[in-house]
């Protein structure tokens, strides 16, 4: 077929361009991912005692995750199509992270000296990032799948953004089961787990987001 024939064929009765379903597809994938990470956390680790939810600890994690979700999902949406600028979304993600780090530092300073190490490392620092990443994998799969149906052209960045969103959803699930209570712990180890998931996404992006 000649290129000009192809052009005629593509244009013929093409109709108006449909709406770009980025919000719908990413939201559906994220909901699935959140469901998966919550169910996995409850089934594999077990829920925290109900009384814990009357304390601040799980809510700190959830608020941090929700704030990160805003920026990371905006980033993922923007990287799901060519050209659109990511400056604002990146700034949003970075500032939430830095604020959390600052909050962690402040609480650490106000902690009596003897308790600082345990506030920083808790009981589970060595497992938290890995557990969080593992709980994020279904979300990562779903989000990459959704992105593939859109039009990402910056594949490493898009994969990284997908990984960050998945990591945040994993953090939400994990917060239902994670016994740690200090702000500094969340600022360091939760962020580490989310970043790990981001790097997995960045590695996968160029491999699976091809079209």
């Amino acid at each position, binding site marked *: *077929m*000649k*290129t*000009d024939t*192809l*052009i*005629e*064929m*593509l*244009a*013929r*009765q*093409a*109709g*108006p*361009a*449909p*709406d*770009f*379903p980025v919000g719908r597809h990413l939201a559906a994938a994220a909901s699935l991912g959140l469901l998966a990470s919550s169910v996995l956390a409850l089934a594999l680790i077990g829920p925290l005692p109900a009384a814990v939810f009357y304390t601040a600890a799980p809510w700190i994690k959830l608020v941090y995750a929700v704030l990160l979700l805003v920026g990371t999902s905006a980033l993922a949406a923007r990287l*799901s*199509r*060519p*050209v*659109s600028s990511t400056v604002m979304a990146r700034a949003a993600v970075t500032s939430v992270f830095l604020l959390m780090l600052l909050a962690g530092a402040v609480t650490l300073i106000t902690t009596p000296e003897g308790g600082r190490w345990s506030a920083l490392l808790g009981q589970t620092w060595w497992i938290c990032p890995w557990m969080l990443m593992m709980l994020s994998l279904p979300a990562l799969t779903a989000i990459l799948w959704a992105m593939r149906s*859109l*039009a990402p*052209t910056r*594949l*490493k960045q898009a994969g990284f953004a997908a990984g960050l969103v998945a990591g945040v959803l994993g953090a939400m699930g994990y917060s239902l089961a994670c016994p740690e209570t200090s702000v500094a712990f969340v600022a360091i180890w939760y962020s580490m787990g989310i970043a790990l998931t981001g790097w997995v996404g960045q590695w996968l992006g*160029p491999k699976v987001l*091809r*079209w």
Partner: protein
Amino acid sequence: MKNYKQHSDFESGLKPLWLRAQSGNELAYQEALRLIAGRLRSYFRRHLMNLPDEVEDLVQETLLALHLHRDSYDPTQPVSAWVLGISRHKLMDLYRRRGRREALHEPIDGLEDDLAAEEPGETLAKRDLRSLLEELPRAQRIAIEMTKLEGLSLTQASKRTGVSESAIKVQVHRGLKRLAALVRKEPK
């Protein structure tokens, strides 16, 4: 400077056509795709110095991709930037398929990488899309042949096949998507 001017001429010629095409104007769409095809040809020719035979195939593959992903165009952005984003993606994809070293370097926005240049004429494509169409599932192939090649309206096609208009539209879209996948898979 000369490049920049050519580039902005390209954009100012393309954008109004493209916007009309996006809202459903068939002739504007044709004309826009022709403009784009010319630029793609010279862009790919510059980047496929060692594979001149691939140029026209990649032009066709990219046009198909632009069509299938035209919903991803954001009207606040220049059309040429959107086209370039997808073309570059297609070029990288070709490199990766070939396992070429170039694939290791993700392209960065650079001055040499724009769509502004003279337009060489169409050469012969190695791969024939018409014969690839034959490999589509029957319903998709027929929907494409009737509405896209014979030029029947959706209503006429629906009457002739007894399938609803929206079903035909879906078959056409799926068929073109399948065609794009076949194009990428086809060993040469």
